[in-house]
């Protein structure tokens, strides 16, 4: 649990949140678009070519040497990215090396962590790592939930992470960037090599803002490594490792559509909604991820687009073979891709100039001069819970356990039509509830909830209600779906009894604190 004191305050969403996080002041959520940032962006120290080899060869023999040369010290912030998802081999090696060096109280700042990072728990227990700021999927989330982490966890969206680095809220001392292909100068990309993952957008902020940048690769090629998704000009050292990732866990050879009839029904209703509401029209855009419902949604929408001869201007992914098919069949002009989920996605990104790699800077950064997310006509997302006021949760389960990260979810809420496509209950656990366990997205940004038992439209969106009024879509009040689900599940679910300690803070896209996670006994 947190070893720093903190005070609590009620924010604009009515949630009680800490006003200091790990010793630094934090601003409670003030409402969507209300918080005004001030000041200038952060910047790394000025470097000079005099300190770097003229032949461009920055290769060092191992990670430990690189960390020492980068000046690693107690209490520093070390960052990694999560393009390898559950197949990452680098983060564990970084902290093993730190343990060998003998440093302690580090802050790990991953763009996300996965079950493969469970070994970090050892370093948290031993004091090498003090706490984690970043999405915690699975075992690390549970560790944090149980109050075992010394510092407070901080969860940010992909865009929120970029913003935090850019705004100077988080200062990265050393960034370690796993790169599927790199040259000795540090230019790097994710397009080829045994650990190919498509792109490296999540590491962009790290390369631009960290004091020291280490590129780690298992596919070192001669200069130049093009396209240089990561510019070698930001990079201090390059380290060659035997293996940086497990390809079978980085991408799947085949992303498969759900066979669950209920989920297929949700996907079909979602696609029909977009069609019937008039969102699906020439030149439109949408975003869908790689979850089972999202993939199926894309195939239903594809069918409707073909039937009506409708073409999109761009789609945003999480790219998969299903989006690639749209591009190759001419049903969309562009894919703007934030992360690549399968081999077809990687091939397409490598070969097709209209399959464009994007980053949290271009797509999601809220403290910028606009971003792509708000320009998308419709986005299809998931959630662990949504309440009758359309507030939604993506990080905790109804028993209070922190088990998921925010990902790009918060950023995507700014789409013109935000749709949560979710089952109304999972096993016996209602998904539609009176009040979400943890608030991640305010209801004013959630427009539609599509379940297998009907579609609820946020009453604020009268335009959408009107648009589908003549259709035979099963539009129902969200309270009615909730009541039906509670009947099925055998009554209202009891609330978890949580401890008082705050174990993690949930940041809104602008850096304010929208909610927090309490310890689960």
């Amino acid at each position: 649990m947190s070893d720093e004191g903190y005070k609590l305050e009620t924010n604009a969403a009515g949630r009680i949140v800490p006003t200091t996080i790990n010793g630094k002041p934090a601003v409670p959520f003030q409402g969507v678009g209300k918080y005004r940032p001030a000041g200038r962006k952060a910047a790394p120290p000025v470097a000079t070519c005099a300190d770097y080899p003229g032949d461009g060869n920055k290769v060092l023999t191992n990670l430990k040497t690189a960390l020492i040369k980068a000046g690693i010290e107690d209490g520093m912030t070390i960052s990694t990215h999560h393009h390898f998802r559950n197949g990452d081999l680098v983060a564990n090696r970084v902290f093993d090396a730190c343990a060998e060096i003998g440093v302690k109280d580090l802050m790990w700042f991953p763009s996300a962590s996965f079950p493969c990072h469970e070994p970090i728990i050892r370093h948290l227990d031993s004091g090498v790592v003090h706490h984690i700021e970043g999405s915690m999927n699975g075992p690390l989330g549970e560790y944090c939930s149980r109050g075992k982490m010394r510092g407070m966890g901080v969860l940010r969206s992909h865009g929120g992470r970029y913003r935090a680095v850019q705004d100077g809220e988080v200062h990265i001392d050393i960034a370690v960037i796993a790169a599927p292909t790199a040259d000795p100068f540090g230019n790097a990309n994710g397009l080829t090599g045994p650990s190919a993952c498509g792109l490296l957008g999540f590491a962009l902020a790290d390369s631009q803002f960290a004091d020291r940048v280490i590129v780690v690769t298992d596919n070192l090629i001669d200069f130049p490594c093009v396209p240089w998704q990561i510019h070698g000009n930001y990079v201090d050292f390059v380290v060659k490792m035997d293996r940086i990732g497990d390809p079978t866990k980085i991408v799947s050879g085949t992303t498969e559509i759900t066979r669950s009839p209920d989920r297929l029904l949700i996907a079909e209703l979602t696609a029909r909604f977009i069609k019937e509401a008039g969102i699906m029209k020439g030149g439109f855009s949408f975003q869908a991820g790689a979850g089972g419902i999202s993939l199926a949604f894309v195939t239903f929408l594809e069918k409707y687009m073909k039937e009506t001869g409708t073409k999109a201007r761009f789609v945003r992914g999480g790219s998969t073979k299903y989006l690639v098919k749209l591009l190759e069949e001419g049903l969309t002009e562009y894919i703007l891709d934030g992360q690549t989920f399968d081999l077809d996605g990687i091939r397409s990104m490598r070969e097709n100039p209209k399959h464009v790699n994007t980053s949290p800077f271009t797509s999601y950064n809220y403290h910028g001069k606009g971003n792509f997310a708000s320009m998308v006509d419709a986005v299809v997302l998931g959630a662990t819970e949504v309440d009758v006021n359309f507030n939604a949760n993506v990080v905790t389960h109804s028993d209070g356990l922190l088990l998921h990260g925010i990902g790009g979810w918060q950023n995507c809420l700014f789409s013109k039509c935000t749709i949560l496509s979710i089952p109304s209950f999972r096993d016996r656990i209602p998904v539609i509830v009176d009040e979400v366990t943890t608030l991640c997205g305010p209801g004013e940004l959630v427009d539609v909830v599509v379940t297998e038992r009907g579609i609820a439209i946020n009453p604020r969106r009268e335009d959408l209600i009107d648009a589908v009024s003549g259709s035979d879509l099963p539009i129902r009040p969200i309270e009615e779906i909730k009541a039906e689900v509670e009947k099925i599940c055998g009554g209202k679910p009891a609330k978890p009894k949580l401890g008082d300690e705050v174990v993690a803070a949930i940041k809104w896209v602008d850096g304010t604190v929208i909610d927090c996670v309490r310890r689960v006994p």
Partner: protein
Amino acid sequence: MTKTCDAGRCGEKIRSDCFVSLELRDSGGIELGLKSKVEVMYGGSIRELCLDVLETLGVKNAVVTIEDQGALPFVISARLETAVKRCLPDNDGEYLPEMLDCSTYKSQRRRFRRSRLYLPGNEPKFMINAGIHKPDGIILDLEDSVAPAEKDAARILVRNALRWVDFYGAERMVRINQLPAGLEDLNYIVPHNVHVILIPKCESSQQVRQIDERIKEILDEKNIEEPVFLMPIIESALGVIKAYEIASASENIVALAVGLEDYTADIGAERTKEGKESFFARSQIVNAARAANVQPIDTVFSDVKDMEGLRQSTLEARSLGFEGKGCIHPRQLKVIHEAFAPTEGEIERAKRIVLAFERAEREGLGVVSLGSKMIDPPVVKRALRTVELAIEMGLLEKNWRDEYVR
């Protein structure tokens, strides 16, 4: 004296079910151990339910352990009741879940039976959402999809589902076991608003009558007036030969179905996609059903991946005169409904005939004519059915006549 019995299933992969282990003892009251995925949300209510079940069944001293994978209340009580009955075979108590309002709707003799969706009777996870896919009928199956050792568990689970699960307007059917086990099934099913009993491997009118009589006894006992309909399934060479006798064995028969998997085996043929080997049987069923004025219903299409095959098979069934088809996966429903839907041309022609018929009635004419053609009564009858079907399937507005009023 202690005695231990189990019911239900456990394991990481099991969803929406639970495993109950019950040890009866002579003293010491009830000791209840619960390990549940939903402990935080529903642990308290699960414990209450279990104590209630045990009290109702008169169990006073027992150690009960439950491993719950998110089972709904009607499942938990069914599993616990099964464990009790396995320990105490003579216990004739019943723990009946509340009969929910959504379980009380009625069916009727004549209604759409285009699709009937089979649900394994001992698999709770498919039951709760079956109705949202809008099949014309759902079949809770006690026969082939239930392992012999689980027949007792399935009866109780299906009984509870009939009282507690919302099937959203689908006709509520149960396929019982072959006789004599099927007669015992009826005790569990008939009092709980089952609409249709499916009689598997039916080979004689006598079987039908036996079931019909037993149903009537149960209904009388429970003072239920609503009849329970019957759908015999013909699955053998003998059954095919006796199809008319079977179809006309009871006034409660509403449909006659054919099951080709067993039938083809019975006649010593391979079941093929083209279905030449079953052409006679299927035509015979249609003929017998029509002669007995009940609906002819085609067999199940069991390859859930082959949607085009399903479409072809359904179109063929329709062309042979069948009114419905069996399926095993909700995604098959749409294809079946579309294949049974009348085409635009058929609807257009039917509309004109219906209008001509209504005009003739209005004007008191004995003969319906369209242009210079006389329309025979069976043609009118078919047109009326086509229009009714088109409206039901959303292909035609209810007030379609308005556009013809000039």
